[in-house]
């Protein structure tokens, strides 16, 4: 008799990853994200100049052999800035959303699984905090604490955690009445074993979609704050900051001015395509069952 293999989180992830690229849309998304990640990782080593050194070329020059994307108004090499400035676009939101998932996930799962007075209290707390627009929270907090990296991460984590908690709470509440969870309880498995062995594997896929969507919102959100000058400060070469600095360059050097904007756009479109493809696969699979 072949022993029944219980799906491990890894095997599920592998299956989901294969499905990501099942559609054309998913493949385009994968490609766009891949391109960006290559720029983030390899870019800094390829950059011909120091990204924040001023006067490496004449001010606001159009593309030339020594400056392939031209220079900005302070005479900095735009290509070098572009190659250096991508990583924070993705990695700061990544850290923030991961933190939001840890907080919101723990809160939501605990309140869904334990229920009772604690569960209700958490639910009311979520009801009251969910409708608050994230941007307004950001304005208040940045006005007081400034726009350092940790403030950004904290804001995004605090604003998204209730949204994630709400979803996980509902998912766990649905699952706790399932027969296989009741069976595990009857077998006398510990709560930790039930949460990690029965509940988490079954909500992993929708969780991943939610993660991707949140990541996308966070990339846009943090970029907007940086664009408004509320986040990272000059001379950083963050793409969103580069976009706001390069607005005067557009008539003379469109390629240099558009590069950071295209990088940012391809990244968010890529994430969105990938997640849309996954959502489609998941809803197809559900309708098959």
């Amino acid at each position: 008799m072949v022993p029944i293999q219980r799906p491990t989180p890894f095997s599920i992830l592998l299956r989901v990853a294969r499905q990501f690229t099942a559609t054309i849309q998913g493949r385009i998304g994968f490609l766009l994200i891949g391109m960006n990640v290559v720029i983030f990782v390899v870019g800094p080593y390829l950059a011909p100049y120091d990204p924040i050194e001023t006067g490496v070329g004449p001010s606001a020059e159009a593309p030339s052999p020594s400056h392939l994307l031209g220079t900005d108004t302070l005479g900095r090499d735009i290509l070098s800035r572009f190659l250096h400035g991508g990583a924070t676009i993705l990695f700061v939101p990544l850290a923030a959303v991961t933190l939001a998932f840890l907080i919101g996930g723990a809160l939501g799962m605990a309140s869904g699984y334990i229920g009772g007075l604690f569960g209700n209290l958490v639910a009311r707390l979520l009801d009251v905090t969910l409708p608050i627009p994230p941007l307004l929270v950001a304005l208040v907090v940045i006005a007081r604490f400034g726009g350092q990296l940790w403030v950004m991460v904290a804001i995004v984590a605090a604003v998204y955690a209730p949204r994630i908690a709400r979803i996980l709470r509902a998912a766990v509440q649905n699952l706790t009445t399932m027969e296989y969870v009741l069976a595990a309880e009857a077998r006398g498995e510990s709560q930790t074993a039930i949460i990690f062995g029965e509940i988490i594997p079954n909500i992993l896929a929708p969780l991943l979609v939610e993660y991707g969507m949140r990541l996308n919102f966070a990339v846009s959100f943090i970029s907007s704050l940086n664009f408004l000058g509320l986040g990272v400060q000059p001379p950083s070469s963050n793409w969103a900051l580069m976009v706001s600095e390069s607005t005067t360059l557009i008539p003379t050097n469109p390629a240099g001015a558009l590069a950071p904007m295209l990088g940012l756009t391809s990244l968010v479109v890529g994430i969105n395509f990938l997640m849309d493809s996954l959502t489609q696969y998941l809803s197809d699979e559900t309708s098959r069952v």
Partner: protein
Amino acid sequence: MPEPSKPYFYPERADVDSPGYRRSFLRFIAQRAALGIATLWVVSLVTFITTNLAGIDLAEAALGVRVTPEQLTIFRKQQGADQTPVKRYWVWLKNVSTGDWGLSLVGRGQRVSDLVKPRIGRTFVLALFALTLALPLALFFGILGARNANGLADTILSAIILVVSTLPEFVVALAVLYLLGVWVGILPPNSNAVSYGTAKEQVEAYVLPALSLALVLVPYSSRMIRASAREVLASPYIRSALLRGVSESRLLARHVIPNILGPIANVVALSLAEILVGDVVIENVFGFPGLGQLAVSAVNTQDLAVVQATVIISASSFILLNVAADAAVVLLNPRLRRLGV
């Protein structure tokens, strides 16, 4: 980029026909209103704690470094900063809710309410302008998409909508600025003429920001309209009307539109709410002298009284419009007419 909407209250058919329905929807609206008030209270608490209590000494910030301890004490007494936190919160809440937002720290001695008032009007007009541009487009795309769901037009539209809805607002606004403001050059790329220009210049200055806001809104609202139109089109009364041989135009006018009026009103209110918050970015791209621009410049100069005012105003209107959106869906349900509501 507005986030996908929350699912709104859809009364079940059996629910509508039951005698208790009227009571249940009044209770629903009351619940939403209570929730809105609770949320606003949380916003006020967060705002107050962050900006008033968390260690910034307003007295030192306002009076500068060359100040005697006596002056500081007098100032604190005037501002009520020597009271207990709870008492200060009460006084603050009373002032804020009556429109007394205190003095701006940066514009020396200027009243925040004088600073804010003209901008509320401009931002509101901008929002209405954007809505009038966005709504017909969203209706057209939404109903077109629902009519031939998963057909060619729907697939292409959905793909475009997916891409546009992903873009950060400032990317959309900059694209509009470059294409129409710089490249074609028929409209001013900078909207500061709103506060001093001639009548014609003032109107022109509204166009590009309103267009950008509309572009941000259309994907979101057309998707919502498509979803509710699809739901209506799939319902039994539409099929029976089709089987009775009702003409296409009559079907749309008599059966489809009345049934999606609630969701449309919902979209309108939610969109307006999204605009009032989302225009912070777009106003700054175009230099539009509205509430959002004031908010960002106040954050940059740590003008906390102004930040408080703009945040509380935006949050109240956002929450009010959300409650209105919830109420609209329930109140505009055509099945209610039977109940004489």
